[in-house]
């Protein structure tokens, strides 16, 4: 029996898509010109789908620190955080993140994906409940599958639906409520005040994943919880270096006095090699810089609002009524139109993300743009103009 046969339907589905000149799952970026431009398939392309919200990938301080770390500490640690893989740089990075969040403790993981696996699987024990939003990122779902807790799901961002479920759980059971600050497909922000207050009312500990909100939400860029003034209701923050921070890695922070024990029980923390010193050094510099980046934050929000207004006025079917994050997504009618639109847009010189089920909620097809603080106003206007031309070219009614 061929174990790959079970994927035949996926192969067929992919083969049925009408791509002619490009395939969204096989894009190769040949040359990176800047935070916002690259050469793709020989064409000069505006990058509008890279999660590089704060544009830190070419930050001079971060690059210099990485080069220094390479020279002084080599290319990799070749070991786990709990064996030979913790260098001074890892501790300095944890201190920098704890300082950024104004919290006591921080654990750095090798990716944000592993941070969710590691936190959720360790915190949610056999007799505990983990309560998650139905539109949670795959890493949250996978953290649930990895652990032994009972998993309860509530309707996306619906705090009344959450309360109905919490009311039914045993009062004295351990409960972990896991939510995100901004959901990455539609770019919608969570009503964290209501959600976290209800969670606390029913005795939950709370974990907020600010992967798509760290850097630009809140005065210090800590995320949506800071923006909404409910940081005191957050027991654990989770984040990634792969978006605003501009490199790779993940972290969790907390004020819990027993937090450090997680280093000895969280398998995705223990059974993998730690981040290389160069990545650690650039993440540290980048986070320090983000803290001081009030102007960049302001420009990023200007860009996001300008793009949202522009596409909305052009008649696109927006996924959120206003810009709630630098993720600006538009609905596309179906997979065929979506595919054609994405391909045509790339030929027009704009790279955005095509998002399709199962990554999207309710079977939606989306074109998702992530705005960068380094996009110029002219680039934003150019993205809007090219969206309009693309819609005309593929015969989409807007």
């Amino acid at each position, binding site marked *: 029996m061929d174990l790959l046969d079970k994927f035949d339907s996926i192969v067929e589905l992919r083969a049925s898509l009408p791509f002619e000149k490009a395939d969204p799952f096989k894009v190769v970026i040949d040359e990176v010109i800047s935070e916002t431009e690259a050469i793709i398939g020989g064409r000069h392309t505006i990058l509008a789908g890279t999660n590089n919200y704060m544009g830190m990938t070419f930050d001079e301080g971060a690059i210099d620190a990485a080069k220094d770390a390479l020279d002084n500490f080599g290319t990799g640690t070749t070991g786990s955080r709990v064996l030979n893989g913790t260098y001074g740089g890892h501790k300095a990075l944890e201190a920098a993140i704890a300082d950024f969040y104004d919290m006591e403790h921080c654990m750095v993981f090798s990716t944000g994906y592993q941070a969710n696996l590691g936190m959720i699987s360790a915190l949610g024990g056999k007799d505990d409940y983990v309560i998650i939003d*139905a539109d949670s990122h795959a890493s949250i779902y996978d953290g*649930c599958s990895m652990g032994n807790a009972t998993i*309860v*799901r509530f*309707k996306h961002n619906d705090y009344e639906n959450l309360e*109905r*479920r919490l009311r*039914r759980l045993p009062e004295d059971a351990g409960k972990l409520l896991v939510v995100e600050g901004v959901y990455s497909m539609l770019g919608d922000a969570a009503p964290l005040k209501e959600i976290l207050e209800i969670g606390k009312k029913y005795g939950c500990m709370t974990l907020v994943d600010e992967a798509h909100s760290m850097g630009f939400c809140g005065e210090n860029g800590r995320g949506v919880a800071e923006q909404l003034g409910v940081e005191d209701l957050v027991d654990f923050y989770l984040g990634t270096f792969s978006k605003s921070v501009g490199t790779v890695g993940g972290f969790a922070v907390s004020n819990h006095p027993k937090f450090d024990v997680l280093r000895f029980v969280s398998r995705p923390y223990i059974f993998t090699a730690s981040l290389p010193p160069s990545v650690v050094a650039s993440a540290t510099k980048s986070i320090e810089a983000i803290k001081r980046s009030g102007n960049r934050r302001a420009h990023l929000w200007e860009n996001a609002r300008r793009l949202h207004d522009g596409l909305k006025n052009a008649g696109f079917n927006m996924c959120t009524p206003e810009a709630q994050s630098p993720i600006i997504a538009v609905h596309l009618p179906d997979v065929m139109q979506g595919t054609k639109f994405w391909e045509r847009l790339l030929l027009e010189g704009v790279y955005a993300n095509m998002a399709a089920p*199962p990554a999207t909620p309710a079977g939606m097809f989306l074109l998702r743009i992530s705005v960068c603080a380094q996009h110029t106003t002219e680039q934003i206007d150019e993205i809007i103009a090219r969206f309009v031309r693309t819609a005309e070219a593929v015969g989409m009614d807007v």
Partner: protein
Amino acid sequence: MAKAETLETIYGLIAPINKKGIDLKPGATFAVDLELDSLTVMDLVAEIEDEFDIVLPLNMLPDLETIEQVADAVEKIVSEG
């Protein structure tokens, strides 16, 4: 074996999403017979939870393929409740 009353309640919740008008019976499966995608099933689960005032944990769902299995699980949770 689930009570007729429980089954009827569940049929009632399925009716609006039973677009193909498939005959609802205890052995009908959600994925194959009713052709419901996983997202629709998820919404249905939420409705069943609210109707019976219970929690149907995500961990249980892979074992619940037919209407009767869901009805049995609901009754078990209600009686333990």
